[in-house]
């Protein structure tokens, strides 16, 4: 079987793959990084979003072989080494931007990529950027709030407060 090597969350990792092994399968099954989720088979839900060489991609729509030599960041690599949540993670928690948590890793990865490209997005830019990330639980409202808050912008408080 062919081998693949890539840097995942800062550590060199390698493993055996088939031609048809998807990046998400390599991460979840090969490296036991199960934070990246699979919610569909049509590349539409975004639960699997990771960063490859700094860009958000759907790990279910890229072969592991194509990540040879790449730098990959998954949800497991977002918080600080001491467990400190990133600004995006903290804002999701503060603004109740998640319920079941299944879409959450993909949401956080997309939102993180957005703020790297565009540190002060408007609300409509946030919504447009997150178009490929589906959430069935929250209704998006609090997710958008969380991303706005993570970018340091004013947000109306959550309803419960």
């Amino acid at each position, binding site marked *: 079987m062919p081998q693949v090597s890539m840097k995942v969350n800062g550590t060199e990792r390698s493993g055996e793959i088939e*031609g048809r092994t998807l990046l998400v399968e390599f991460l979840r099954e090969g490296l036991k990084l199960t934070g990246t989720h699979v919610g569909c088979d049509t590349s539409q839900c975004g639960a699997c979003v990771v960063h490859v060489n700094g860009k958000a991609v759907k790990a279910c*729509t890229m072969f592991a072989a194509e990540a040879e030599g790449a730098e990959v960041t998954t949800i497991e690599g977002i918080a600080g080494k001491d467990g400190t949540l990133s600004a995006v993670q903290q804002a999701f928690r503060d603004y109740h931007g998640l319920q079941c948590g299944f879409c959450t890793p993909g949401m956080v990865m997309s939102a993180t990529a957005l703020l790297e490209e565009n540190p002060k997005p408007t609300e409509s830019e946030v919504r447009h950027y*997150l178009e490929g990330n589906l959430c069935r639980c929250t209704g998006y409202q609090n997710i958008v709030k969380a991303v706005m808050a993570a970018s340091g912008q004013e947000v109306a408080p959550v309803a419960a407060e």
Partner: protein
Amino acid sequence: MYAFEIERPTELSAAVAALKDEGAQALGGGQTLIPSLKQRLAMPEKLVSLSAIDEIKGVTREGDALVVGGGATHGEIAAAAEEAGFRGLAMMARQIGDPAVRNRGTMGGSLANNDPSACYPSMALATGATIVTDRREIAAADFFQGLFATALEEGEIIVRIRIPVPAASSYQKFAQPASRFPLVGVFVARTGEGARVAVTGAGEDGVFRWSEAEEALSAGWSAEAVAGLSHPSEGLISDLHGTPAYRAHLIGVMTRRGVADAA
């Protein structure tokens, strides 16, 4: 997915050679091919990934034309078109799929696939783009040959697309809410050879030009010039999402919006 091998050449010539093998298929950004492999709709023995070939990447300006690499991603194209003041293409590229799809999907892959609902074919047809492959140049007018059919030969690779930048252009997409592909998309362009209106998502034979609107607009570029026109519903797609009459109506609306936007 059925089992297959993957090769990842770094030279175009190596890719062309690899594609000569029986059962070999090109892999662009994979944003169409991978989902169809998952549904087991394709059975390649070998995929030849084009993602490591630098010579088919990037977007450059050459005189009046924008030259887009066959392997340039939608995201790169949106940024480059914006910078080149090519409004219609910038609008189009930044509305394809979502950011993650745009970071992988390529113009070469989209044109080669020629999905009847893909966005780029309307732009290529309206601007009179030239598709440059590893062996020849093909005018857009000759390139699209019906649903999922193109002039490409077995193993032929789209290396770049030369697009004359129109004086004014706009792309109006009415998205199907679930897939976000256009239910109807209209690209309007004011070019040296007159007005061009190309329609995607609607035709039973794929992308087409709406000549009646082009004539009206060539006489005078304004939304009023096409206000009274309606596209016939014959030959338009009928499916779960819309009747031919509905699509015909949308063609009119989207065309008027496009012309107003590109004024």
